[in-house]
């Protein structure tokens, strides 16, 4: 987005406003006239979906906060009161809890899209790093939110995750005590987690603004991985991308509504309906599904400090992808070897997720170690080497050429109507 907007205000009021705060022009050039690659597929709808999910989580969260009490003696019962007494409280709670799962599902798909099509490559490195920061903020927010109902899983998740910091040499124990505000997880911990859980989503919203700004500077990537060369390669964001986003959002909502209305507790853990008991740890302690792959990596390493470092590294290493991947070709469409390695990577993430939900014994441990090895090898071995040794397919001359043939979309059965010229 360079230079002034092409927005032409019609009414006298809009002309007046536009001269003083050109927000309408900004919205117009960013989301109406914005030139969007014409070949975007449905994997590109997840950015919009994520924005909507953030909005939903904030709205339902603010409303739930009107009824929740952040004190160890009252928290569990206040959540039950929301479920039983508050008008539509059950709905708001299930929308918020399942909303977190859907938020992470969309985030992982969005991330994998970026990995597949090379959206992290030059000039989109900062965009990508902002995305990794957003993932870290989401992980922190989700973790703290899960502690709030003060069930058995809430309490013991808080204990285990805060104890991770005790692995840090010299200062670890001090940091943990500082996080707890006491000698163990307790009321000070719950109250500060509530405050931060309310705060971080607004920090996320701010970083999202930066993320979209960085996106608009570079322009969107596209499935062919080649930059738009002329106006023929792009279409205006509205109505094309807007409608495509809206359509897939509705499909996504069908899945979301399926969980909320038919199986609202499926993704949760039954033990979180037991009030927190500091004296008894549940036998099968597991985080929510979206943390399971990282949990598996943590447990795969037999050393406490190295396990924690591996956990952190598994997320932070994403930020280095623009420099680890040496290939000049962006999109996996034209990188046959990378494509296979990518799908193996996705499979290993899913595998790690499954292993994270199982007891760390016997064959499960060996499998987790193998998959962890592949996970890191993908970044530090495969990505750098493929750039040097992979024989890539020839790139198309332009985006328009890759989707049109003599002005007709490839695969179309009928010739276009006479008026179709874009």
């Amino acid at each position, binding site marked *: 987005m360079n230079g002034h907007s092409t927005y032409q205000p019609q009414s006298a009021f809009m002309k007046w406003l536009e001269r003083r705060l050109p927000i309408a022009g900004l919205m117009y050039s960013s989301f109406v006239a914005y030139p969007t690659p014409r070949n975007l597929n449905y994997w590109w709808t997840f950015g919009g979906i994520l924005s909507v999910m953030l909005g939903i989580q904030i*709205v339902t969260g603010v*409303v739930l906060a*009107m*009824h929740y009490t952040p004190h160890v003696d009252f928290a569990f019962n206040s959540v039950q*009161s929301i479920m*039983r*007494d*508050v*008008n*539509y*409280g059950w*709905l*708001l709670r299930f929308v918020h809890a399942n909303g977190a799962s859907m938020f992470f599902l969309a985030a992982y798909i969005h991330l994998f899209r970026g990995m597949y099509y090379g959206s992290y490559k030059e000039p989109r490195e900062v965009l990508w790093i902002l995305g990794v920061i957003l993932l870290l903020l989401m992980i922190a927010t989700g973790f703290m939110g899960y502690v709030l109902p003060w069930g058995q899983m809430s309490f013991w998740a808080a204990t285990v995750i805060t104890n991770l910091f005790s692995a840090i040499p010299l200062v670890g124990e001090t940091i943990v005590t500082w996080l707890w505000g006491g000698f163990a997880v307790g009321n000070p911990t719950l109250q500060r987690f509530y405050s931060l859980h309310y705060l971080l989503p607004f920090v996320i919203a701010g970083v999202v603004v930066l993320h979209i700004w960085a996106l608009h500077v570079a322009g969107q990537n596209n499935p062919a991985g080649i930059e738009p060369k002329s106006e023929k390669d792009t279409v205006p964001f509205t*109505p094309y991308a807007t409608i495509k986003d*809206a359509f897939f959002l509705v499909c996504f909502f069908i899945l979301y509504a399926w969980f909320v209305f038919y199986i609202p507790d499926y993704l949760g853990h039954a033990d979180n309906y037991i009030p927190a008991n500091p004296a008894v740890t549940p036998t099968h302690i597991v985080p929510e599904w979206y943390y399971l792959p990282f949990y598996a990596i943590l447990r795969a390493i037999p050393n406490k400090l190295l396990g924690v470092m591996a956990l952190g590294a598994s997320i932070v290493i994403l930020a280095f992808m623009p420099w680890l991947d040496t290939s000049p070709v962006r999109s996996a469409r034209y990188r046959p070897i990378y494509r296979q390695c990518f799908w193996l990577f996705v499979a290993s993430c899913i595998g790690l997720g499954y292993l994270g939900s199982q007891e760390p014994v016997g064959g499960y441990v060996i499998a987790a170690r193998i998959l962890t090895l592949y996970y890191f090898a993908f970044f530090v071995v495969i990505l750098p080497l493929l750039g040097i040794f992979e024989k890539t397919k020839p790139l198309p001359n332009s985006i328009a050429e890759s989707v049109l043939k003599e002005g007709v979309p490839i695969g179309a059965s009928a010739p276009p109507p006479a*008026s179709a010229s874009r």
Partner: protein
Amino acid sequence: MTSSSSAHPTRRDFLYIATGAAGAAGAALALVPLVAQMNPDASTVAAGAPVEVDLSPIAEGQIIKVFWRSKPIFIFHRTAKEIEEAKNVDWQSLPDPEPDAERVKKDHEQWLVLIGICTHLGCIPLAHEGNYHGWLCPCHGSQYDTSGRIRQGPAPKNLYLPPYQFVSDTKIRIG
């Protein structure tokens, strides 16, 4: 976005309007739980159930306070003199005209049951105070008589009556 040059609405127009209408309906419906959750929840409504008050311990001339739906309720066991004072007034010339008979239950005119909130700005008036032997509100000086009617001061209305019934001669149910 090309629009049809003919006079007929196109399929695209239909789809746009239908989608917009469905979206608007969905947004309106989504708003319902968000707004409704601020209404009193089931436990608050349950706590607002009727209360029964035993009148037998209340001596003549005594005023007690109970709570119903978080509001203070004055229960006044009036003496004969206080009932006389309430009746012997030209009630039509009062700031909020109302005869005493309409503020008590038939055959139980010694019992005055009122919501103890000043009708000016919501303070709780003080009992057995003021020139009319009823209540005096300390906040802005409104004065009520032995029937709870406003006689002097900024309050616009007489003290309100809660809904109540005599369950027996010595027990009432408020609400």
